[in-house]
């Protein structure tokens, strides 16, 4: 079954190591909440803001999740130090989407997917399903992998922080483009499909795609 999806807004942020100018002080004014945000949380809040999306269904994806906090917990256990409760509560894969909901007061459905290299495509599929019951949905995929020792794993030289987001709606218009998952240098594989879609959005005024549920 297919759903035709129109892209309303699109946003992208990335950096080889750390994304500057996520504008978190403006976007999350309460310091006591802001200080808890993980990197992926700040990136998601930034992307959603750029797409003018505050409340409503959100579908978020990350192949690797909250690696910085995960590594911190593993290090604590390995070195026989006490595990930080803050690091643990921030280590679940849905951390970023949850913090966005807390910052924006979003009580709608939030889903988090983690599907390896096909994460960003699967996130869009889930977004398309959600559009059958909701007017507008925000879909995004983020990898935030800037932790000490990441070089051991980063054989393909992907940028360590990468996030892409789209606000989408269902449409009766015909699809006017097809997106593939061709990998691009520096883009984490889990984001390839969304990066290709983002590039199309940058070059076309109106983008409508057909998404297989």
């Amino acid at each position, binding site marked *: *079954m297919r759903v035709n999806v129109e892209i309303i807004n699109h946003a992208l942020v990335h950096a080889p190591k750390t994304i500057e100018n996520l504008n978190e002080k403006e976007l999350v004014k309460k310091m006591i909440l802001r200080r*808890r945000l993980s990197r992926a949380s700040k990136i998601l809040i930034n992307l959603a803001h750029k797409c003018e999306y505050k409340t409503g269904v959100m579908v978020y994806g990350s*192949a*690797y*999740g909250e690696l910085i906090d*995960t590594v911190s*917990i*593993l290090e*604590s*256990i*390995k070195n*026989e130090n*006490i*595990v*930080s*409760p803050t690091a*643990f*509560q*921030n*280590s*679940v*894969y*849905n*951390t970023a*989407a*949850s*913090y966005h*909901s*807390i910052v*924006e*007061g*979003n*009580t*709608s*459905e*939030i*889903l*988090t*997917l*983690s*599907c*390896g290299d096909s*994460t960003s495509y*699967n996130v869009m*599929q*889930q977004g398309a*399903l959600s559009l*059958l*019951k909701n007017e507008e949905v925000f879909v995004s995929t983020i990898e935030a992998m800037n932790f000490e*020792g990441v070089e*051991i*794993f980063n054989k393909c030289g992907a940028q360590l922080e990468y996030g892409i987001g789209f606000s989408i709606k269902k449409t009766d218009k015909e699809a006017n483009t097809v997106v593939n998952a061709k990998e691009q240098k520096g883009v984490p594989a889990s984001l390839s499909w969304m990066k290709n879609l983002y590039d199309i959005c940058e070059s076309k005024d109106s983008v409508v795609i057909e998404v297989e*549920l």
Partner: protein
Amino acid sequence: MKKVYINATSIKSACGDTGQTFDAVFNKKSALVRHDNIVPQKTVCIGKFKEKNSFEDLLIQSVEEVLSESDLEDFSNTLLLVGSSVGGMATTEEVLFRDKKYDNIDIEKHTIDVIASTLDKKYNFLNTRSFSTACTSSANALKVAKELINYGAYENILVVGADAMCMTTVFGFSSLGILSDEMCTPFQNNRKGMNVAEGIATLLVQNKKLENSIELKGAGTSSDAHHIANPDPSAAGAMSAIKNALKDASLTPDKLSYVNAHGTGTQANDETEAKALEEIFGKGIAISSSKSNFGHTLGAAGAIEAAICVEILKRQTLAPQILTSDNEKDLNFVENATTAKIENVLSNSFAFGGNNTSLIFGVCHES
């Protein structure tokens, strides 16, 4: 909208296999064990598999069991939906704690996706998708399965909830001060916290009604938008998820006979959930939490407890909870397995980040 049927289930829990888990639940047996040698200077009570097979073996056994019980030859026309909160973390820990360095860790074996990719290699599904929303992971997978079948997008969906025991979650919940040193006593005045446990459950969800089908009638979610780990004490989020499930099932609260609660044994969850249940159902509805039997299986909880709800409906028997003291709201907890006319039951799952998912299962009626 096509109706949605659960046509086969299997469980692996601290209590054992499917039959052993049902036996433990209906006969009030607990498989939770106290350990002094895991977290330094603390006793923790957790639920580990008895079987010595690898997690991967148990995963495949669980899926094989469902395949053999089903009307399918294979899974080539089946979508796989996985719900897991830790994915391959246990493998990562094994390598890291053994080698004391990260060099030998295979990052592809660490992620959530490892479960789906392991099963896909063996069974060649139509496609796979994995959800990771902490303790609602597999409940959300079931909700998505329902929607996809409702819309006719798929005929067969296999939902697998799976979380292996890892030190990250044991130490993590312990650091939050909510890991009990004894078997949990959900909703009771003497409750001290939860018990981390490992678990696997597989459910075959289809658009086809068979002789022993149980219907997945409703699914509802919401977000608390309150705190990353503590539930909203007003219970607004929990109530919203339950009401959304009722609306989705086109049922009023009086049509439900029983609630399989999220009931973890923590002060916060149980107080909030009790509030939500009393508000919506009053004090009369039968309630039990199965977490005293096999613990809190985190990402697998939604699926395991769904399988228990299916069994409750098949047996037309309310599952009891192991009760050791009074409960603070004087709600109607099931003391002993009781046969009753059970039409519809509710299963709740509430997670870190304020993610709430409620599922309604019921007896099928039309031919």
